[in-house]
């Protein structure tokens, strides 16, 4: 199309886009032309007045054609030209960035790797493209994967990079070429970018400097047939023995809606296996896999779909995820306002769970408490905690049937802060003194709750309804309420459980909260919210509005473990992700040797208030047993945040142990692990990312090319590039299109006359 345009209009569209139209005829000529135009107009007027065999319509048509012809002639005589700013040959530099990552080894349908284009286009003496570029610019070549670096020749390309970070590469090259006249950058890549930073950040300096980026997209946009595991949603840290429902995103092209196995494995065994029904062509589907991680410590869990026959890319069928299986004993405080069976049955349900310590404070009479599960005689000796230090020692709080007036205002605020600031979990249970019936409306805790409190029922009898509980769609997909360790349809298991009762009518959740369990019953004015949750500040809040879920233990057949499973999973979820006073987090869980990774440590005191004057020491143990200790520095940007960079040298597992102290007094510590090894990331989303490459070109003022259209690259840089430029006037009067138009007008007039018999 561009070639046809160039044939007719002498120049390619890009030149017209870049240039400005100007008329170069001298003033005397212009005056003469004006006189000629007036004369022509008079002549046309005589056309309209002429008489003969023609009618008015004929005269109008012929006059119009003649005016058009005169106009074209006039345009040509005015000496039209395009004023273009073009770069001065050999005065400017062009940086050529070549993708050196592993995805460049992928072969196309003809069996040629993407990297073959690089050899074809940039081998000296063999390439017209290279020659045309070299004739006009001084070229500088760079390779890039996760970062960019200068190369002297194509022989330095290995196509072994395991990450592609276009933004970082562009920044690096722009930095290296700073200070010299730069006409533009040529980016030769498949666009399979997997950098962590937003690309916009990297394009801004280029836009500011006016450096256009010319992108050359390699490879096919769609690799078919292929199955790709797009994403695996697994928390970084879980409690030992927790049941996880892991979402795995799978996309297929060219296989149709078939079913394939999905395997979950660790180093030694298969942990789970599920059948996945693939979705429509190119559309991702989410498969849920249930698994338990029993072995404490760092683990690499591999999710894999066996390679199917004919697949174009084998390496994108599996994902490895690093997960920290913790064997901590999480302490949960359960305050119950009166003896209820809920206490005994909940304790029994989690008694075998070594990772959960349920501490019960049971009010048995006015100011009299029965303490269960405490660590010593002093724990909770004075009843419910009155200080933040005391309350924040727990990772979660369960409020049973206890009225709000039991607490002081400070304690109520402390409970709200426990969730929002300390990041603890809160679970509110149903009961005659819970929710609105317990006077919780209007307290600081009300807005923490993930349910909307309705006014209490009128009358001395209050509200009572028997309900059958069922999971919502969100609940059906939530790990915490899956019943039965062996899998199967959780909804059927919920349907088999006996009815329970509620004394708090709750039928709405606030914005942002999610209902996981609902209840239906004859006496309900509206479906009952049974279990809901939401994030609140740093923590999360749950509400379980039934008052006697122990019936799920007492009534079903003895072998039914639903009640135990429900409570174990619910309490583990409640303490999941509750932050420690000292928490170490790596920005990425897996890197390659020599790839730097940032460690961010947050440090708080006993009330979880951020500490900025702590001594934070990071002890790194490499896979060979070498130990190094490095202090982490306060970032200044955020309270309580300390960072350092780790550059691992060896493949394997690194143990990173952080300890924090202030004025010699220990504040706490944390341990995390880093996996170092080669990455298969390059093979995911490995089709050509045309849209991304177009965006880079458009936002910087460059052009996007494919190997088929790249021949004009040198010309285009000449007219669009930055650097040392000169203004050039390019004649338009001799455009073939202009003369063609004149002939067409004349021919049309002659044809019209013949047709109408006016010749």
């Amino acid at each position: 199309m561009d070639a046809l345009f160039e044939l007719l209009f002498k120049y390619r569209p890009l030149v017209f886009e870049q240039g400005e139209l100007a008329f170069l005829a001298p003033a005397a000529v212009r005056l003469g032309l004006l006189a000629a135009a007036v004369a022509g107009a008079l002549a046309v007027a005589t056309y309209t007045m002429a008489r003969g065999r023609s009618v008015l319509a004929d005269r109008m048509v012929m006059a119009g054609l003649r005016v058009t012809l005169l106009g074209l002639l006039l345009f040509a005589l005015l000496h039209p030209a395009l004023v273009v700013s073009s770069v001065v040959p050999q005065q400017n530099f062009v940086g050529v960035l070549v993708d050196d990552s592993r995805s460049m080894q992928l072969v196309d349908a003809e069996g040629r790797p993407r990297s073959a284009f690089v050899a074809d286009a940039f081998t000296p003496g063999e390439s017209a493209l290279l020659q045309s570029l070299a004739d006009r610019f001084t070229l500088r070549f760079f390779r890039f994967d996760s970062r960019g670096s200068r190369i002297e020749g194509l022989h330095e390309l290995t196509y072994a990079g395991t990450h592609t970070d276009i933004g970082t590469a562009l920044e690096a090259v722009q930095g290296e070429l700073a200070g010299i006249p730069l006409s533009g950058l040529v980016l030769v890549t498949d666009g399979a970018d997997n950098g962590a930073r937003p690309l916009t950040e990297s394009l801004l300096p280029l836009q500011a400097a006016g450096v256009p980026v010319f992108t050359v997209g390699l490879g096919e946009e769609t690799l078919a047939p292929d199955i790709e595991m797009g994403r695996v949603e697994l928390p970084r840290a879980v409690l030992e023995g927790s049941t996880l429902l892991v979402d795995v995103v799978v996309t297929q092209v060219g296989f149709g809606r078939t079913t394939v196995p999905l395997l979950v494995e660790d180093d030694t065994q298969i942990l789970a296996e599920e059948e996945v029904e693939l979705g429509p062509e190119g559309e991702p589907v989410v498969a849920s896999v249930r698994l338990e991680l029993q072995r404490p410590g760092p683990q690499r869990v591999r999710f894999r779909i066996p390679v199917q026959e004919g697949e174009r890319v084998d390496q994108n069928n599996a994902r490895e995820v690093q997960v920290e299986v913790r064997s901590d004993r999480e302490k949960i405080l359960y305050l119950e306002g009166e003896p209820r069976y809920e206490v005994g049955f909940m304790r029994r349900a989690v008694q075998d769970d070594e990772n959960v310590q349920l501490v019960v404070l049971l009010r048995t009479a006015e100011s009299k408490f029965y303490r269960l599960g405490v660590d010593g005689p002093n724990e909770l000796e004075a009843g419910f905690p009155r200080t933040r230090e005391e309350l924040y020692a727990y990772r979660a709080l369960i409020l049973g049937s206890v009225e709000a007036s039991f607490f002081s205002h400070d304690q109520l605020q402390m409970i709200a802060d426990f969730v929002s600031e300390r990041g603890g979990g809160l679970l509110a249970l149903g009961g005659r003194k819970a929710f609105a019936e317990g006077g919780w409306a209007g307290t600081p805790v009300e807005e923490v709750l993930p349910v909307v409190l309705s006014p209490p029922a009128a009358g001395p009898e209050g509200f009572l309804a028997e309900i059958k509980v069922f999971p919502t769609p969100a609940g059906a997909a939530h790990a915490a309420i899956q019943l039965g360790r062996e899998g199967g349809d959780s909804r059927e298991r919920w349907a088999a459980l006996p009815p329970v009762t509620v004394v708090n009518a709750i039928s709405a959740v606030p914005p942002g909260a999610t209902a996981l369990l609902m209840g239906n019953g004859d006496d309900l004015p509206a479906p009952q919210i049974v279990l809901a949750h939401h994030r609140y500040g740093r923590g999360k809040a749950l509400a379980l509005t039934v008052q006697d879920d122990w019936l799920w233990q007492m009534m079903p057949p003895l072998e039914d473990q639903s009640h135990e499973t429900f409570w174990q999973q619910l309490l583990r979820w409640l303490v999941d992700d509750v932050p420690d006073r000292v928490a170490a987090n790596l920005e990425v869980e897996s890197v390659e040797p020599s790839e730097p990774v940032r460690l961010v440590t947050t440090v708080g005191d006993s009330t979880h208030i951020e500490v900025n004057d702590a001594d934070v020491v990071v002890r790194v143990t490499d896979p060979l047993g070498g130990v190094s200790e490095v202090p982490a520095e306060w970032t200044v940007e955020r309270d309580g945040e300390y960072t350092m960079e780790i550059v691992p040298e060896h493949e394997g597992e690194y143990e990173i142990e952080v300890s924090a102290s202030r004025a010699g007094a220990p504040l706490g510590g944390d341990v995390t692990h880093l996996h170092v090894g080669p990455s298969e990331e390059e093979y995911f989303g490995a089709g050509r990312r045309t849209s991304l490459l177009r965006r880079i070109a458009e936002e910087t003022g460059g052009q996007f090319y494919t190997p088929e259209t790249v021949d004009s690259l040198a010309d285009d840089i000449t007219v669009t590039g930055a650097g040392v430029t000169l203004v050039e006037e390019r004649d338009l009067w001799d455009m073939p299109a202009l003369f063609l138009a004149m002939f067409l007008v004349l021919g049309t007039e002659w044809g019209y006359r013949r047709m109408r018999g006016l010749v």
Partner: protein
Amino acid sequence: MRPPSRARATLAALVVSPLIAGCDAGAAERGLDRGTGPMAQEVPPIRRPTRQDTELALRLPPADEPPGRHAFYWTRAVYSGSRGRGWGRPAWATDFPKGDRQFLIVLKRLVQLDAYDFENAVPLDDTDLRRFPVIYAVEVGHMDLTQEEVHGLRDYLNAGGFLIVDDFWGTREWAQFERNIRRVLPGRPIVDLPLDHPLFSAFYQIDEIKQVPQRDRGIYGGPTWEQDGVFPHVRGIFDDHGRLMVVINWNTDLGDAWEWAEHPYYPLEYSTYAYEMGANMIVYGMSH
């Protein structure tokens, strides 16, 4: 012996005051001289249950009130067996329903408990039994369970139920109860609960297991034991996880003390202990 604590004094006042108001005031005037015990002076007569009382209808919560209105229902186990020791009523119904109601009145004053105010008797082979995780069985020396009751009680206990046994005396009645409970829980040992077991400190601190005499022996004096049951015991049966499933009060009669605590001549020492044990068993049973 531990000196009476302030809590105990309060308990004693609580036990007696609400009940004494409801006792037959005229009875004192019509008192009878019964025996030579510590209360062997003018003793009010005791109202004997009538034949109508023995035709006891099971008192379940009213039909229009499904279980769930209250956190706690004091539930009697209805079991098969021979007649009890008194007046031809079934053994399970001894002290029923007066003992149950009076126990609940005092219990609710002692413990902050949302309890149903009335008696609730449920057969052991009734599936509804599992709605009431704490049950109470008396006069179990006359127990002779059917196979359905054996299965019902076994499932109940294994599911998480807690059985309180009371008011049976001597080796003969023990043998009868043991024969039945072994059918329910074969192979599980029956052990004496040491005083440091949490049952004895769940609400009150109990440092001594007392023998609570039957009503007449308490009011009129004489030995506190019956048959050859000289020494009181509190025994238990545990499940595989160490959970106490059955607590057995042998050679003692807590139920009579609950029922007759209002009687001005029933010794306060026994009724106090009985209510302490009752409160402890309820709090323990609901929280373990």
